[in-house]
């Protein structure tokens, strides 16, 4: 219970700080963010956009890990875990795409410009879409779990090409691209101490939130499956409407 209150306070603080703290030329007070050339006021999106993109990748990683686990142990609970992770992953993937596109409208002048990062998040969205399409086409539980696990692993090994290689060989607009001279790789931190602190607090807060949601998600899937198995569907006719 305590950590839920802690999480609530943390995310409240991050949201308020991320939105309201001013960006100034020479930060003096503890609540002021530095002015990053090429990003300017738009830089604030880092507190919300980067965590969603980060969680997209984490969710994808967990889907792949639990897929491997399922193939090794053939335990349907692992399938529920990877399914719950992917459900959250697609939500965060859409959020990252949309927040990124909105930011791009103000920073680059158009919603979509096939920057390598945009391409890679788009491909992640496609992979999630294909994964859910594959799952919905298979009736039997074991078969669905096996085939979707295999597909998740195959997709997982191709993703590094997008996330890590493509943005570095293609010229891109995104902060952190190979030819970025203005802001430089954001990970090399032109941010000052308090901006970094809030960025990492936001990352931690969103990650905890993700794991909480994921736990609820996979437990509800497991319980639903158990209930379905107990009922053995005498109410099929009732579900028709």
């Amino acid at each position, binding site marked *: 219970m305590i950590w839920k209150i802690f999480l609530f306070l943390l995310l409240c603080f991050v949201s308020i700080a991320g939105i309201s703290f001013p960006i100034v030329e020479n930060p003096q007070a503890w609540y002021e963010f530095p002015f990053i050339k090429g990003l300017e006021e738009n830089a604030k999106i880092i507190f919300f956009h980067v965590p969603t993109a980060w969680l997209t990748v984490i969710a994808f990683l967990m889907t792949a890990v639990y897929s491997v686990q399922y*193939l090794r142990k053939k335990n349907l609970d692992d399938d529920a875990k990877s399914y719950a992770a992917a459900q959250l992953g697609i939500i965060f993937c859409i959020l990252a795409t949309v927040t990124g596109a909105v930011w791009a409208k103000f920073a680059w002048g158009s919603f979509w410009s096939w920057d390598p990062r945009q*391409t890679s998040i788009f*491909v992640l969205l*496609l*992979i999630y*879409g*294909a994964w859910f*399409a*594959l799952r919905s*086409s*298979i*009736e039997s539980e*074991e*078969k669905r779990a*096996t*085939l979707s*696990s*295999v*597909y998740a*692993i*195959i*997709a997982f*090994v*191709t993703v590094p*090409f*997008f996330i890590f*290689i*493509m943005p570095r*060989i293609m010229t891109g607009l995104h902060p952190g691209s190979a030819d970025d001279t203005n802001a430089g790789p954001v990970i090399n931190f032109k941010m000052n101490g308090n901006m970094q602190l809030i960025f990492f607090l936001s990352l931690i807060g969103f990650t905890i939130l993700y794991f909480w949601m994921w736990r609820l998600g996979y437990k509800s899937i497991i319980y639903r499956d158990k209930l379905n198995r107990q009922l053995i569907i005498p109410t099929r006719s009732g579900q028709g409407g």
Partner: protein
Amino acid sequence: MKSLALFKKDLNSELRTRYAINALAMFIIVTLSIILFSIGNERISQSLTGGLFWVVIFFTSMSGLSRVFVSEEERGTSLTLQLIAAPSTVFSGKLLFNLILVFAMNTIIAILYSALFEAFVLRNFALFLVSFILGNIGLAFASTIIAAIISKAGAKGTLYPVLSFPILLPLILTSVQLTLFAMNGTSFETAKFELAIVVCYDVIILTVSYMLFDFIWKE
């Protein structure tokens, strides 16, 4: 070699019905003529022809490469295959068949394409040849393992391109880039990073396919 025997069996049954070959041949003609009609009298730029080349290859492979496994499921012969051969043998046989099919298909596409599009001029033919071969190998590897997944799933026709596209995209993007390099006459030295990516892709997909095929096949 059992996988060679399997390959011969596939070849024989294919030559008897000519389903995949006919579908592929017609598909090549259809896609090429759609592109030609939609272009009309426009003069299209060189870089566009390089991209369209891979569009033709992608959609053509999506029309016929799933046959190797889907036909086994349709005829109900997959259980017999499971009894007589180990999964990796089956996969090798099917992979060989798809490799030959992809190479034949893409060579025809390349010849037709360079005959029909005047802007498609290759200044560095050796680079094109290397990237073409590596790209074909990757295409055959990835499409074979996805075909295996598809054959076990319910909706066979529509799902195949949906599942293949994200997996093939790194390969296609890099191959488009390499084709453009070949058309601009770029040297091997400049293109070595892209070539390395395609080689990595081929190796990774092949390894993953052999590791995971057991699970699909036994399902």
